[in-house]
């Protein structure tokens, strides 16, 4: 059951009006223009024990992602593909509003948006994850861990997930005579086969303005958000309207243009993070 949320920190009307006045001049309180994301910092390999990991700072928002890889059985209807699972935890240290407990609808929605954005373009080539067809495949767990929630968890989580997957290496393994697979945790094997990188760009609508990468204060006064997943070729590979408002057809089209433009900033940050790793 989904319930109208009780406490998005309620922003006085006056704040919203002042904010709209600024947007009218093309500028935001943190000195950004409307279409530029916050500062991005991506660090990979931050959890040595995980097969892949990354910490992303998007402004003051911090999200970590870890990739764990185990041997499992494939799904019945896809015997020739590995398994990808995306899970998000909004741990209570990340926000005064998060309570301990199983993932709520926001964490579930986030994980499913990241999951679909990866899955629909086969960003990780699941066909390359088969050990023994129909029997044994690699199972990838992407665990998103929100550490400091200061707005736009979507883009930060997608970046962290993508960076962690790019960082990940399949573990080495041995096949026993019994057919059992023994994973050798310490030994890092091949990198994952990534067919394309994907990012999401979140656009918030405040009054009649569309802004890219809203921070927490902006989210609290936004009417609605549109999360747009974009791949390296600029194709739209996923989308989700989120929040209790609506959008006109024209606004949606405009948001897509903003998303495609801003995606290049995210892709550049991803490139640098990986290059940094190899360098």
């Amino acid at each position, binding site marked *: 059951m989904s319930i109208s949320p009780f406490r998005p920190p309620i922003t006085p009307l006056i704040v919203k009006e002042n904010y709209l006045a600024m947007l009218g001049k093309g500028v935001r309180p943190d000195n950004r223009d409307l279409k530029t994301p916050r500062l991005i910092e991506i660090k990979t390999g931050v959890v040595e024990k995980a097969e892949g990991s990354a910490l992303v700072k998007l402004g003051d928002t911090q999200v970590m992602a870890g990739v764990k890889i185990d041997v499992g059985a494939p799904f019945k209807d896809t015997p020739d593909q590995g398994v990808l699972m995306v899970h998000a935890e909004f741990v209570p240290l990340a926000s005064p509003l998060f309570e301990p407990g199983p993932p709520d609808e926001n964490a579930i929605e986030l994980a499913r948006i990241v999951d679909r954005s990866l899955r629909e373009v086969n960003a990780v080539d699941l066909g390359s994850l088969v050990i023994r067809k129909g029997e044994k495949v690699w199972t990838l767990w992407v665990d998103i861990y929100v550490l400091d929630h200061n707005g736009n968890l979507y883009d930060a989580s997608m970046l962290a997930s993508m960076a962690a997957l790019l960082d990940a290496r399949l573990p080495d393994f041995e096949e026993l005579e019994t057919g059992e697979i023994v994973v050798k945790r310490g030994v890092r094997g091949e990198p994952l086969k990534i067919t394309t990188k994907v990012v999401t760009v979140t656009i918030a609508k405040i009054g009649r303005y569309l802004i890219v990468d809203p921070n927490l204060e902006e989210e609290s006064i936004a009417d609605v958000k549109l999360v747009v997943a974009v791949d390296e070729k600029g194709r739209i590979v996923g989308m989700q*309207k989120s929040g209790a408002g609506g959008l006109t057809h024209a606004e949606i089209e405009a948001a897509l243009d903003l998303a495609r433009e801003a995606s290049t900033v995210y892709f550049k940050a991803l490139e640098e993070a990986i290059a940094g790793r190899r360098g």
Partner: protein
Amino acid sequence: MVVKKPEGLVLITPEGLRHDGRRPDELRPIKMEVGIFKNADGSAMVEYGKTRVIAAVYGPREPIQKFPLLPDKATLRVRYHMAPFSTEERKNPAPSRREIELSKVIREALEPIVLTEEYPRTVIDIFLEVIQADGGTRTAAVTAASLALADAGVPMRALVGGVAVGKVDGVLVVDIDETEDMYGEADLPVAAAPDIGLVTLLQLNGVMTREEFSRALDMALTAISKIVEMEKRTLRSGYVEAGGSEL
């Protein structure tokens, strides 16, 4: 995830028709009915082909189990739920992650439409049960919710309706069924309130070019206009069914 298409399944015929004989822009036969339950303050049944969803609305009311209410408007509570017998394999009745997400997405499709500010400190409950799932359940659920809210007399800015457009063998088709969803390349569920020009639900699963997306959204909005017109007829007469060229 790529599920292999069964042999012999032709999604788009050489003549440009779909696996069930529809044209790309053709909706499935649709049935709508309101006032189907005695207890609920408002209720409705909606069928898109074999997809069947029922809706009940209770409220505005005080909730049975107390929880913090909003001081300035009604709280919407939406539950999208699938009957265990609605799917190919029996569905565990405990809410899945998918159902939790769709409950949120549908609630947010209704929030912009309901005049919640008229009933502060109350709850409006919207319960949606998928009785049979054959593709497009979330959009049929929005349509059913819209009818049940109107049937309950809840004041609304406009009626809202939903439909899913798909991309199947490269062709954009409206109101996809489960087969087209499973073996198609993209699924674009849309809900909108045509009378006020607002899209209130929008998801995309799959890949579209910029141009395809614009066309697909247009197709969805055209179809939704027909669906909302049909909602209006249903609210007048209690029951309406239509299919093929009538739509």
